[in-house]
């Protein structure tokens, strides 16, 4: 039966896979590692095992995330869709009334507005290209106060007076945290302060697309309870609970796209432009001028 679709979300830190068999969702996860194809293959293998099916049963695969470009699964039709569209699709699948998504991953954060009729992206904003407001930021700060990133969120929930952390830059925030430590501020208060700092940053992204309920929190950092509380506090929004770990939203969206692509028989758009001979002598002459050799 043609009802088995696979979505792979090869993120900057973590790779996630979702296999949709009818409406049954199978999941797999592992660190992205260095070789994205191997990671992808391992995820596929694990999912096949979990679902008890063969590779040839899969109708279509869609990849998303940073590693989406280079993947190849011999024989199985493959396409790629950006993680922005996939997070929207995945969140919509789990909760059709989703209108706003905040996605915090390992190396970036995004605010996405979604059309609740079809799960398509209406508008989106990404953070600037630095670690501020991302999972990486939290990870580095956690290390500097002697916690793992998993502990950081739990510890933050015990804060009495969240510390003021104003730096958005990892390097500066780290020295800010060190001086807080020197002032005997508790681990919990520092942890809470760091989450609030990230939440303000991400809150700015959200206000640029506009926050409309229902709001869904996706990406690896969505597992962090301290982060969720800080975001709810800053944005005054209530996040919806999903029936699936929201870290899989992107991979799930990719699987849903795989199903749609298979249905509409979409072929991946290939457009390779070749350099035209006509321009060869001009390019040569310009090259000489640029090197002042003319």
């Amino acid at each position, binding site marked *: 039966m043609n009802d088995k679709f696979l979505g792979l979300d090869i993120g900057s830190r973590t790779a996630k896979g979702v296999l949709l068999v009818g409406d049954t969702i199978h999941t797999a996860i592992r660190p992205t590692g260095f070789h994205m194809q191997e990671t992808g293959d391992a995820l596929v293998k694990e999912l096949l095992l979990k679902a008890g099916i063969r590779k040839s049963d899969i109708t279509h695969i869609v990849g998303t995330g940073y590693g989406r470009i280079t993947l190849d699964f011999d024989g199985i039709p493959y396409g790629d869709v950006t993680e*922005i569209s996939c997070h929207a699709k995945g969140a919509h699948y789990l909760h059709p009334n989703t209108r706003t998504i905040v996605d915090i991953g390992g190396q970036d954060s995004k605010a996405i507005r979604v059309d609740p009729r079809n799960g398509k*992206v209406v508008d989106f904003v990404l953070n600037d*290209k630095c670690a501020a407001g991302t999972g990486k930021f939290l990870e580095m700060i956690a290390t500097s106060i002697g916690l793992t990133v998993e502990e950081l969120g739990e510890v933050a929930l015990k804060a009495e007076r969240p510390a003021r952390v104003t730096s958005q830059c990892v390097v500066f925030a780290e020295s800010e945290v060190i001086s807080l430590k020197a002032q005997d501020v508790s681990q919990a208060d520092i942890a809470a302060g760091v989450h609030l700092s990230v939440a303000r940053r991400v809150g700015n992204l959200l206000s*640029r697309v506009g926050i409309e309920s229902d709001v869904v929190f996706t990406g690896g950092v969505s597992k962090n309870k301290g982060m969720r509380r800080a975001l709810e506090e800053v944005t005054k929004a209530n996040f919806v609970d999903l029936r699936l770990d929201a870290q899989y939203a992107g991979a799930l969206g990719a699987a849903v796209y795989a199903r749609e692509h298979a249905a509409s028989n979409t072929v991946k758009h290939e*457009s390779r*432009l070749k350099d035209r001979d006509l321009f060869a002598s001009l390019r040569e002459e*310009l090259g000489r*001028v640029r090197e002042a050799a003319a």
Partner: protein
Amino acid sequence: MTEQNKEAGTQKRAGYFCIYTPIEVIAAAGATPIRLFKGGDSIVVNSGEVYTRSYFCQFAQYSVGAFREDDPLYRSIDKIYHFNTCDQMKKGVEAIGEFFDVPYKMLCLPRERNRDASRQFMQREVEFFRKDVEELTGNPVTDEGLREQIRKYNQARQWVKRLSELRKQDVPPLTGGEFLDIVKAFYYLPVETSLKYFEEFYSHIAAEKASGERPIRLMISGGIIADGDRRLIDLIEKELGARIVVEDHCTGLRPFYYPIPEDKPPLQALSDGYLDTAPCARMKPLEERLDFSQKLADEYRIDAIIYVSLKFCSCYSISKNSFTKRFHGLEIPVLDISADYSENDLGQLRTRIGAFFELIRKGDSHAAA
């Protein structure tokens, strides 16, 4: 070019950065005008930072860095002429003069083109410019010489515009990357040479029949896209399959749109013509610039706009707000990219632009930032 200079091989090279420089004056004195707009290399930018600050615009920093790195083209320049457009480039030129002993002349460019005082002032600046170029070259710049150069450069502008117009077809026979090469010929080569290329290109490309599906038609708008700054263009066209059909910036179609008047005394023609060129965001009122952007968008039947401003360019990063507002009103999607010359954000750019195209292909006409 005078015969004496040709023989002695002493033809002077005058460098300029901004398109508000009346290069006809330089050519009429027998010197070669060369636009210094390589850009695109973060190592050169870092080198320039020795004299500027990290929060200078990437292009200004690059321009200083190119002298520090002894770029052969930049070092071959005898004098820089700078019609002051933005503060960062002005300070950049001063730094080049101060730290690398490069002669330069700073000239003023009024912001309000519609005032009589601006017109009179600009004409005096062009006169001043003419005298300086005469001193540099030792050659007189005659009215007749200016008229001849105005005619030649107008011809070249006309060809560039005609080549661009080939892109109005549903499936453009010319890519945005190729158009940038055409534009480079105008800025790097003597006008007689570039005219030959333009005619040859036009006769070939106009005869071609482009086939295939109508691609996403894009306008690139915003600040300068330097000669060496190709990665965004390649990402859009070679990797993601869309086409740049028109550029609303100073290294694309924009400066070629309007000719210099040929029916006025040459100095007045140049000062009026350059003031009336399709406006940079540094000119006032900003509305005129937005009107021009909209005119291009209509003419070239674009699907969407990618607005690119270089990091720390105050001019284009602020005016993007009015720009975006205008095009949201017209329901044309605008993607705002803050660019620099580093290579480390290609993955993020691929995702942002890719998602933008996914949104356009689905027929949603909202904007993304």
